[in-house]
C-alpha cells in the first residue's frame, strides 16, 4: 500500500515538475492530445451515417440522388480529420521539445544538487549507482515521458469516447465488448505480472554475469599466467546458463502477451459480429441511448469500434512495463535530488585586504593579501584577521559511524610555515584528519581553529579556498593541460599557470608533449604516466597558492627518478606554507617540524625525526622497516 502511494506521488511529481518547466506548453500539448484523440474516435459516427444512407438507397442504384448527402458527410469528416492532423502534428512536435527539455533540466538540476551534497554521500554511495541515475534512469524516464504518457492519455480518452459512442448505439453489443476487455485485462495482469517478475530476475542474473566478467577481465593476465582459462570458462558457463533461462522465461511471457491480446481481440470481434447477427436475425429489441434500432449500419461501425477499443487496451498494456520502470527511475532521480545538501552556517569570510600602520582594512581589488572578515553578532562590529595559516586542533574526536570512533583526543598545532607529518598504518586516521580540516566531515567533539577562528564559523567555500590539497589519487579532467592547471585558480593567466608548472617541476615534461600546454587530456590523463599526473596535480595546487597545504602522498610505486622529481615539486610547493603531510613513505617526513605517529585514532608519539628515533618507539620500528606502513 505504501509503495503504491509513493508511486502515485511520483507520477504527480513528474507531472508537476514538467508543468513547472513548461507552464504554457504542457497544457497546450495536453489540449492537442485530447483534441486529436476525441476527433479520431468520431469517424465511426460518420461511417454509421454514410452506411445508413447506402442501406436505404443501394437498391435504387441512383448515385446522384444521394451524392449530395454523402459528400457533405465526407466533407465534414475531412474537416475533422484535418483538425485531428493539425492537433496530432502539434502535440508530437511539442512532446519532442518537452521531453528533451525536461530531461535536460532534470539533468542540470540533478547535477547541481549533486555538487552541493556533502563528501559523505560520495564516500558512502557506490559511484556506479550514482552514475546510473544519469544514464539508465534518465533513459527510462525519457521512454515514459515521450511514449507512455501521451499514449496512455490518448488511449484513455479514445476508450472513453468510443465507449460513449458504443452505448449510444447499442448497450447489448457494448456489454459483449466489455466482457472481452475484462478478459484482456485479466490476461495482462497474469502474463504481464509473470513477465515483470522474470525480467527482474533476468536483471539480477545479468548483474551477476557482469560482475563475474568484470572481475575476470580485470585479472585476465593472471588467468593466463596460471592457465586458469578452462576453470573460468566453466564458472562462466554456469552463470551464463542461469541468465539464459531467466531471460528466456521473461521474454517468453512478454512475447506471448501480444498475440494473446490480439487474438482475444479477434475473438471479441467475432463475438460482436455474431451477437449483432443474432440480434438482427431474431429482431430482438435494441437497448441504446439513441433509441435507434439495431441495423447493419450500426453493426459495421461497431465492429470497427471494437477494433479501436481493443487496440487501445492493447496499447495500455504495452505501456505498463515502461511506466513501472520509468517511475522507478524517476524515484531514484528524485531521491538524489532530495538528499540533504551540505550545510554551511559559516559567516566569517575571506576578503582582499590592505594593511596600513598595522590596521587591516578591506578593499575590493586584489592586493595579494587576504584577511578573515569576522562580523560579531553581539555588538555588530566587524574585525579583520590576517590570513596566516595557523591551524590548531584541541581534543578533537571524530567518528564516521556512531560508536566507532576514528579519532580520539587529537590535539596539535601548526604555526604558519610549519610542516606537520602524519605517520601510521592504514586505518590509523591520517586521512581523516585532513577531511576534518577542510570540513568534508564535521568533528564530533573538540575544536579546530584556523588563525584563531573556530572553523565552524568560517564559510566553507572560503575555508576551502584557504586550503590546498594534493590527493593521493590524482584526478584530472578532460581538457587541455593548461585548463587542468588553471583549475586551481580560474582567472590565472597562462604565465601564472606556466610558472606554477615550473615550480612543480612539471614544465619539463609538458613542453615535450606533442601540443605542449595545449595537449588534450582525457580519461583522467590516461596518456600520462602516474608520476606526470601527480606533477600536474601539484602544479594545480601551486597556482591556487593557498597558505595551508595538505599533501596526501601517492602510494603507488613510481620509479626512483620520477619520484625524485615529484619530491622536488612537493618540496617547492611546501616552502613558505603551513603543510600537513600524510606520509606513506618515510622519505618525505624527515625534515618536518613535527612528526605525529597515529595508531587506531590516537596520537601515540610526536616529535622531530631525531627525537622519535631516539625514543626507539613505533616510529623507530617503522623507520627501520620492521613494520609495514600500508
Amino acid at each position, binding site marked *: 500500500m505504501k509503495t503504491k502511494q509513493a508511486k502515485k506521488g511520483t507520477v504527480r511529481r513528474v507531472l508537476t515538475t514538467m508543468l513547472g518547466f513548461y507552464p504554457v506548453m504542457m497544457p497546450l500539448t495536453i489540449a492537442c492530445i485530447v483534441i486529436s484523440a476525441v476527433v479520431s474516435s468520431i469517424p465511426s459516427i460518420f461511417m454509421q451515417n454514410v452506411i445508413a444512407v447506402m442501406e436505404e438507397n443501394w437498391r435504387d442504384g441512383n448515385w446522384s440522388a444521394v451524392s449530395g448527402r454523402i459528400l457533405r458527410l465526407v466533407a465534414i469528416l475531412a474537416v475533422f480529420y484535418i483538425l485531428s492532423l493539425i492537433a496530432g502534428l502539434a502535440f508530437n512536435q511539442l512532446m519532442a521539445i518537452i521531453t528533451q527539455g525536461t*530531461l*535536460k533540466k532534470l539533468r542540470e538540476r540533478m547535477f547541481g544538487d549533486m555538487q552541493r551534497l556533502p*563528501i559523505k554521500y560520495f564516500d558512502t554511495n557506490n559511484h556506479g549507482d550514482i552514475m546510473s541515475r544519469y544514464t539508465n534512469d534518465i533513459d527510462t524516464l525519457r521512454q515514459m515521458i515521450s511514449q507512455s504518457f501521451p499514449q496512455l492519455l490518448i488511449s484513455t480518452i479514445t476508450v472513453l469516447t468510443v465507449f460513449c459512442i458504443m452505448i449510444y448505439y447499442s448497450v447489448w453489443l457494448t456489454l459483449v465488448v466489455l466482457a472481452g476487455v475484462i478478459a484482456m485485462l485479466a490476461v495482462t495482469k497474469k502474463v504481464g505480472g509473470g513477465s515483470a517478475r522474470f525480467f527482474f530476475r533476468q536483471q539480477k542474473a545479468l548483474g551477476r*554475469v557482469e560482475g563475474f566478467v568484470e572481475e575476470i577481465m580485470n585479472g585476465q593476465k593472471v588467468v593466463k599466467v596460471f*592457465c586458469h*582459462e578452462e576453470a573460468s570458462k566453466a564458472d562462466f558457463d554456469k552463470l551464463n546458463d542461469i541468465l539464459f533461462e531467466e531471460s528466456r522465461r521473461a521474454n517468453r511471457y512478454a512475447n506471448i502477451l501480444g498475440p494473446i491480446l490480439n487474438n482475444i481481440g479477434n475473438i471479441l470481434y467475432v463475438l460482436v459480429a455474431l451477437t449483432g447477427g443474432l440480434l438482427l436475425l431474431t429482431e430482438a429489441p435494441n437497448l441504446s441511448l439513441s433509441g435507434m434500432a439495431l441495423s447493419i449500419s450500426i453493426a459495421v461501425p461497431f465492429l470497427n469500434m471494437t477494433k479501436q477499443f481493443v487496440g487501445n487496451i492493447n496499447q495500455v498494456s504495452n505501456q505498463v512495463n515502461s511506466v513501472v520502470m520509468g517511475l522507478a527511475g524517476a524515484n531514484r532521480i528524485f531521491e538524489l535530488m532530495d538528499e540533504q545538501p551540505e550545510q554551511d552556517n559559516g559567516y566569517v569570510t575571506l576578503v582582499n585586504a590592505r594593511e596600513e600602520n598595522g590596521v587591516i582594512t578591506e578593499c575590493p581589488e586584489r592586493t595579494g593579501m587576504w584577511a578573515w572578515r569576522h562580523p560579531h553578532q553581539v555588538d555588530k562590529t566587524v574585525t579583520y584577521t590576517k590570513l596566516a595559516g595557523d591551524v590548531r586542533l584541541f581534543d578533537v574526536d571524530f567518528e564516521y559511524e556512531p560508536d566507532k570512533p576514528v579519532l580520539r583526543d587529537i590535539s596539535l598545532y601548526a604555526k604558519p610555515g610549519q610542516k606537520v607529518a602524519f605517520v601510521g598504518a592504514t586505518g590509523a586516521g591520517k586521512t581523516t584528519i585532513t577531511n576534518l580540516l577542510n570540513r568534508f566531515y564535521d568533528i564530533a567533539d573538540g575544536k579546530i581553529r584556523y588563525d584563531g577562528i573556530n572553523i565552524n564559523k568560517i564559510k566553507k567555500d572560503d575555508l576551502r579556498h584557504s586550503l590546498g590539497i594534493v590527493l593521493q589519487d590524482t584526478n584530472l579532467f578532460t581538457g587541455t593541460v593548461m585548463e587542468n592547471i588553471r*583549475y*586551481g585558480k580560474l582567472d590565472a593567466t597562462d604565465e601564472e599557470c606556466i610558472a606554477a608548472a615550473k615550480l612543480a617541476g612539471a614544465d619539463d615534461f609538458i613542453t615535450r608533449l606533442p601540443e605542449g600546454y595545449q595537449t588534450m587530456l582525457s580519461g583522467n590523463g590516461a596518456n600520462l604516466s602516474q608520476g606526470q599526473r601527480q606533477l600536474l596535480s601539484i602544479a594545480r595546487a601551486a597556482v591556487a597558492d593557498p597558505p595551508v597545504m595538505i599533501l596526501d602522498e601517492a602510494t603507488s610505486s613510481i620509479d626512483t*627518478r620520477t619520484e625524485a622529481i615529484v619530491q622536488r615539486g612537493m618540496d617547492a610547493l611546501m616552502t613558505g606554507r603551513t603543510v600537513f603531510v600524510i606520509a606513506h613513505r618515510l*622519505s618525505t617526513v624527515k625534515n618536518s617540524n613535527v612528526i605525529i605517529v597515529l595508531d587506531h585514532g590516537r596520537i601515540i608519539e610526536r616529535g622531530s625525526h631525531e627525537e622519535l628515533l631516539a625514543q626507539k618507539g613505533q616510529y623507530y620500528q617503522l623507520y627501520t622497516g620492521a613494520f609495514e606502513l600500508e
Partner: protein
Amino acid sequence: MMKELAKSIREYKKASIATPILVSFEVVLECIIPFVIALLVNEVKSGGDMRMLLRYGAILIVMAVLSLLFGALAGSTCATASCGLARNLRKDMFYAIQDYSFENIDKFLTSSLVTRMTTDVTNVQFAYMMLIRTAIRSPLMLVFAFVMAVVMGGRMAWIFLFVVPVLAIGLGLVIYKTMPLFRKVFKKYDNLNASIQENIKAMRVVKSFVREDYEQKKFNTAAEDVCADFTKAERILALNNPLMQFCVYAVMVFVLSFGSYTIISSRGLDLDVGQFSALLTYSFMMLSSLMMLSMVFVMITMAVESGKRIVEVLSEKSTLTNPANPVYEVADGSIVFDHVNFKYSPTAERMALSNIDLTIRSGETIGIIGGTGSSKSSLIQLISRLYDVTEGSVKVGGLDVRQYDLETLRNQVAVVLQKNILFSGTIKENLRWGNPDATDEEMAAACQMACADEFISGFPDGYDTYIEQGGANVSGGQKQRLCIARALLQKPKILILDDSTSAVDTKTDAKIRKAMRTYIPETTKIIIAQRTASVQDADRIIVMDGGTINAVGTHAQLMANNEIYREIYTSQNKAGDQDED
C-alpha cells in the same frame, strides 16, 4: 558481420526457423478473419438463417484460437532463439577472450569488453527477436492484407498502391534524416555521461577547490548542446505519427466517398457493405505494419554498431598458439636469450627490447633493475611466452619456448605480475589457482615461505577468510605476499617476481628472499625490483636501460663499474628510507 554473428545460433537454429513459419501462419489467419467476417455480414444482411450464422461463428473462433496458438508459439520459440543466440554470443566471446594472448588483451579495455558482453549482446538479442518475428510479420501482413483487399474491394484496393509508397517514402526519409543525427548525438551523450563520471570521481578535488559552480556551468553548456541535437532529431522522428495518421485518413475519406459511390451505382454488385467494412480493416493493417517495419529498421540499424563491436572480439585471433607437436616436459630452469628483439605490435616503431643476449643457469638468482620504460617487464614476459619474440629466440631448459605446450611451459615458469590481482573467494580458493590439488599443508608451507602465514593466522577465519573483489580487504603488502604464495604453490622450475614486494617492508622482503634461497634452491629466481636492497644479494644483477641490457654483474661489480646502478643505489640510500640488512 551477419555471417560471423550467425555462427553463434547453433542449437537454436530450429527455434530460429520455426518462429518465422509460425508467424506466417498467424498472419495468414489474421488476414483471413476479416474476409470471413465480411461474408458473415453479408449473410446477415441477406437474411441468412441461424445455422449459417453459427457455422461462420464457429469457423471464425477456431481461426482466432489457432492464430492465438501460432502467435503464442512463435512468441515462445522467438524467445528461445533470441535468448539462445545471446547466450552463445556471450559464451563465444568469453571463450575467445580466455584464449587471447597478452597482446590481444592489451588491445581492449576491460570496461569495453564488459560492455560488449552485456549491453551490446542485449542490443543484438533484441534486434534478432525483431528480425525473426516482426521483420517477417510486417511485410507478410502488408502483402496479405493487400491481396485480400484486392480480392474484396477490387478496383478500390488500388488506392493502396498510391498510399503505401507515400508512407514508405515518408518513413524512409525520416529514417534517412534522423539516423546520422542520432548517431552524432549518442556520441555526444556518451561524452556528457563520461564527464559526469569524471566529476563524481573527482568530487574531492571539485570541493576542495570550491569549483561546484564552475562544474555546473560546464555541465549546463554540454547538456544544452546534447538537448538541442536530441530535440532536432526527435522532432523529425515525431513526423512519423502524423504521417501515418494522414495516410489512414486519406484512405478513409477515399473509401467512404468512392466506396459508397460504387455500392450505390452498382447496386451492391461491385462492392457490398461487408466488403466495405473489411476494406477499412485491411487498410489499417497495411499501414500499421509499414509503421512497424520502419521501427524494426531503426532498431536493427542501431544494433549494427553493437554487432560490429561483438564481431571485433570474436574475430580477434590469438597471436599465440600451441605448436603442432608440443613438448610436455621442461628439462630444467635454465634460460637463454639469443639475439632477441621484441616490439609489442607489428606496427610499433620502437623496439621494446633490442639485442638481448643472456644466459641464466638453472637455480641462479637474478636481480633486474632499471627505470620506468627500461623494459624490465617486457624481458621476463618472453620467458613464459606471454608474448612472442619479434626476432631471435628464447630458450627454457634448452628448448625454444615456442616448442613447448603452453600450459606446460606456464606451469613451470611462474610469474608474479606487477599488476597482480586476487579474486573474490576465500584465501584457500585463491591459493588453489597455483595448484588445484594443493593440500592444506602445502598451502601453509607456501604461505610460510612468502611470510603470509603470520597475518593469515591472525584473521578470525584464517585460510577461509573471504577476499573481496580485487583484494580490497587486505593491505597492499599482504596482497603481494598472497600472490607470491600462490605462485610458489605451482612448484615451478622458474619463478619470476615482477616488482612483487614493493609494498612489503624491507625486513619481510629480505625474509622472503632468504626463505626462497633455503627452501627452493633448484628453482631459477628472477626478481625485478625498484629498490637495490631487493636485488643486491642476487647471484647476478641485470641493469636495464632503454630496452637494452646495460650491464650484468654482482652488486659489488656494478657499484664499482656501473653509473646507472650506482646512481639508483645512492639516491635510495641517501634519502635514508632504505635500510640495509
